[in-house]
């Protein structure tokens, strides 16, 4: 047997060394931390369409950064904008920086789509061509002449041969998206309250979650703001600013919580154990646990979320339980022989119960939560193995200080601890239970996605200001369309557009944006080409009437020649995507995935009536999505599912416990169960709304509460176990309770629930697990 044990020890040591190696390897390869709060969300939304749309929107928005430069003095502001633009370009962290517009860019835009000009008509012009007979009183002729006779002739005159009736001019102006910003001083600008805002937009080279990019951009903006002084304001908008803040906050919280809890725990242990070497031995399993958990999580998940690490810092508080029980038993007992064997069943059951709790957490569909559960479970197993395999190898002396000073005080304290059999406890407890159940009746829940928010108000206010100035369409609500071919998708968009026009006509919607506004289906393009060929360029048609009305008959022949020589192939989606003019629409065209084409339609000025109508468009090919609503729905769904999971976990554990403890099993499970109910009732009474993350904490309470109860019950309330439970409660309070100080809402909810729950478990566990007579141990 000792040979086998040595073998296992060797294997475990090899495993630990492997993990250390793996960490060093990852560090060298450039460790990538995930700071995206959204990766805490379920990875599989309801439909393929929604998934593709979300992914496409994330891709096109993640790397986008917008700067607005503003000030009172226009000239100063404009040169500041140029300075910002140049600084952004020379920083080399951006792939593109778009600020001051240059002539060539503009010329390209102007001529863009021109080779397809005879395939595009506005709806109004199409109706005019279809409905009015040829005469010099034709509305299109009157409109075209009136422009040529006004100063606008400087704009429309140059295209008189290719576009005599200004049909393409009409179309170009109609399909340019309406924006709040317009070209002034060669910049896209907007004037609000005597201040001119200059727009610069840029695309990052790297992901916004790349930490070195975040640092560079941070420094860059701080420098710019310092250089530009107080008179110039630089507003920013972009995922990167939130990612950067989130990363900094998480790093700060991890280091403060991690260090804070380690320091507090060390001081506590030093006070009780009175020996540095003992404290180090106690910490050994935790160090091993964290190392192994970190290494294996890296191997399994590729990227470690910073929140996982923050949460994992709380692992210290749980993993130390095994060490504490072993060390406390050792310092209190003279004969070390068979010590491990005596406490091993409790240790094993404690580990099992925690693993069950984390397993339930791992069942949730939140990738972030799964990673946390995995990290914690692996860490606990590693710490447990280290306690069981290595701690017995150390020679741990009996502590007289603990035996003569600490244990008697604790025993005395325990003497006053009421047992559940006593009326002075069970009556108030029953009243409390009833009060709690009554309080739970008025429980309010909160599934708002802002729970996932980490950004401070100031950052959000800045962002909101930029978005309001931009007057951008709401990208949280959209239609996703799909069809088997690109052309069918465009036909579908055209059909939907008719319904949307009627919603606009009813005044429930301001505008919508769809690829088909610029890229017509082949059928529509052919029809429009034919209409133009017949009604404008046909013999004795509008072209002739126009030339005569203008008194310039030579136009007819030359214009017809230009038309006949022009390209007569329709525009394909591939060609359209290459055109500079499609820039404002490309993000709506999601392209092909698995033999299906997808596209989006976005909205401006959406009202509740419009939303109701849009939801009714639902079919196999069309789906209306409200991102915010759908995420809140998911949070709500998982909150109720998690509640079932918790109940199931209790049921399962009760079953396991009954096998060992028979009819006494309720005593073991009562403390975590009641602590959970009281905690939620207390939070609710204090006015807090219950979120998914409070419930997650209940799972951890189950694990920790069972640890304490099992040890107290198994040791028949021996003083050293009582010491271990007290120490473990305090360490858990230090470790998890500090999470309650986190700014990150997820961690905050988690921490505060654990904080209250652990305290209650510490109060309740002894009363349930110790029989009245064992109080008389000393």
């Amino acid at each position, binding site marked *: 047997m000792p040979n086998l044990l040595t073998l296992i020890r060797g294997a475990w040591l090899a495993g630990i060394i492997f993990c250390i190696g793996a960490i060093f390897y990852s560090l060298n390869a450039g460790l990538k931390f995930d700071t995206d709060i959204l990766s805490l969300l379920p990875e599989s939304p309801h439909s393929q369409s929604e998934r593709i749309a979300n992914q496409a929107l994330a891709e096109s928005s993640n790397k986008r950064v917008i700067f607005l430069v503003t000030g009172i003095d226009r000239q100063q502001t404009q040169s500041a904008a140029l300075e910002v633009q140049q600084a952004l370009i020379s920083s080399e962290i951006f792939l593109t920086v*778009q600020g001051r517009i240059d002539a060539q860019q503009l010329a390209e*835009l102007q001529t863009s789509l021109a080779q397809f000009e005879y395939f595009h008509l506005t709806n109004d012009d199409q109706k005019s061509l279809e409905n009015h007979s040829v005469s010099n009183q034709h509305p299109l002729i*009157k*409109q075209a002449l009136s422009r040529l006779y006004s100063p606008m002739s400087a704009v429309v005159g140059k295209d008189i041969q290719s576009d005599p009736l200004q049909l393409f001019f009409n179309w170009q102006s109609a399909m340019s998206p309406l924006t709040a910003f317009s070209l002034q001083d060669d910049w896209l600008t907007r004037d609000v309250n005597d201040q001119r805002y200059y727009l610069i937009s840029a695309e990052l080279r790297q992901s916004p979650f790349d930490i070195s990019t975040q640092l560079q951009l941070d420094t860059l903006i701080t420098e710019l703001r310092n250089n530009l002084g107080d008179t110039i304001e630089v507003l920013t*908008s972009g995922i990167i600013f939130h990612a950067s803040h989130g990363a900094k906050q998480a790093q700060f919280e991890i280091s403060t919580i991690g260090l804070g809890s380690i320091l507090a725990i060390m001081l506590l242990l030093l006070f009780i154990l009175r020996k540095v070497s003992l404290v180090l031995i106690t910490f050994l399993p935790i160090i091993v646990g964290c190392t192994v958990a970190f290494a294996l999580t890296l191997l399994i998940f590729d990227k470690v979320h910073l929140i996982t690490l923050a949460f994992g810092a709380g692992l210290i508080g749980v993993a130390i339980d095994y060490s504490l029980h072993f060390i406390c038993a050792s310092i209190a007992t003279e004969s070390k022989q068979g010590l491990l064997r005596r406490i091993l069943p409790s240790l094993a059951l404690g580990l099992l119960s925690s693993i069950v709790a984390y397993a339930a957490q791992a069942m949730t569909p939140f990738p972030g939560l799964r990673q946390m559960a995995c990290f914690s479970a692996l860490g606990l197993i590693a710490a447990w193995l280290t306690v069981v395999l290595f701690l017995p190898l150390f020679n741990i002396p009996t502590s007289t200080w603990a035996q003569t000073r600490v244990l008697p005080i604790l025993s005395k304290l325990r003497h006053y601890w009421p047992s559940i059999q006593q009326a002075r406890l069970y009556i108030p407890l029953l009243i409390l239970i009833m009060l709690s159940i009554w309080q739970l009746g008025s429980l309010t829940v909160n599934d708002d996605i802002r729970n*996932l928010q980490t950004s401070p108000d100031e950052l959000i206010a800045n962002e909101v200001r930029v978005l309001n100035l931009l007057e951008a369409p709401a990208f949280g609500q959209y239609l996703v369309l799909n069809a088997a071919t690109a052309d069918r998708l465009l036909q579908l968009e055209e059909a939907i557009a008719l319904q949307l026009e009627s919603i606009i006509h009813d005044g429930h919607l301001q505008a919508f944006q769809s690829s088909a506004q610029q890229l017509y289906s082949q059928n529509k393009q052919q029809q429009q080409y034919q209409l133009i060929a017949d009604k404008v360029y046909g013999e004795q048609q509008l072209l002739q009437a126009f030339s005569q009305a203008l008194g310039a008959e030579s136009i007819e022949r030359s214009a017809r020649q230009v038309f006949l020589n022009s390209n007569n192939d329709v525009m394909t989606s591939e060609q359209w995507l290459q055109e500079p003019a499609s820039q404002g629409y490309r993000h709506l065209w999601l392209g092909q995935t698995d033999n299906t084409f997808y596209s989006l339609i976005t909205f401006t000025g959406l009202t509740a009536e419009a939303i109701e109508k849009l939801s009714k468009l639902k079919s196999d090919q069309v789906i209306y999505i409200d991102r915010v609503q759908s995420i809140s729905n998911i949070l709500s769904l998982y909150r109720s599912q998690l509640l079932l999971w918790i109940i199931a976990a209790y049921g399962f554990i009760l079953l396991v416990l009954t096998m060992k403890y028979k009819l006494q099993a309720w005593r073991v499970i009562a403390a975590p169960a009641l602590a959970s109910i009281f905690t939620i009732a207390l939070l609710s009474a204090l006015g807090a709304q219950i979120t998914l993350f409070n419930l997650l904490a209940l799972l951890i309470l189950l694990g920790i509460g069972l640890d304490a109860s099992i040890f107290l019950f198994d040791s028949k309330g021996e003083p050293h176990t009582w010491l271990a439970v007290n120490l473990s409660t305090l360490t858990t309070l230090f470790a998890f309770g500090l999470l309650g100080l986190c700014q990150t809402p997820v961690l905050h909810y988690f921490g505060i629930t654990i904080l209250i729950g652990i305290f209650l478990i510490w109060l309740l566990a002894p009363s349930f697990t110790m029989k009245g007579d064992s109080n008389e141990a000393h």
Partner: protein
Amino acid sequence: MIRALHLLTLSLLLMTLSSFAQPRAEQDVTVLNKILAKQSQVAGTFEQAKHLAILPMPIRSSGEFSFTELSGLNWTVLKPVHSQMVLDDQGIRQIQEGKVVWALDASQPAASHISTIIASVLAADWQTLNKHFDLSHTLTGTRWDINLQPTSQVLLTAVKRITLTGEQVLEKMTLFEANGDSTVIQFDIRNSQP
């Protein structure tokens, strides 16, 4: 989260067509203000001749116009056909038989900048013109010629230069376009108020 979804917006903003440029030295403005002071109201008749390279004869039109700082420029063609156009802060509106038949929002500078130029010219708003053009002038007795040279590369793609001539009031404006076409407008100003 919601913010994240809003950020796609920029590319929408790059759909524009023409533009203006940098501010110049102020001294020209002071001199020009002495030659012709800024007007808050101008009204009169016009004759426009549009010269197109491909046509042997210019396209001619005439009519009335009125400009006020508040209501913008109202351009009414009486010959050869009757038509009306309003150019103001909101953009351009084309009116036929009392109904708006076509409108261009001011955020789409394709044509709305032309209204800024012509309104500034009529109002003798040298301050505004100075932001987009190099201003130079010659005086012959009491007659003056003012030359406007675009300072922006972007504006240059549409307008080569603009010349203004007059005596006491503006009499003629010629806009030379980049492709060789030109627009000549002769004004007969009857009513103007500084």
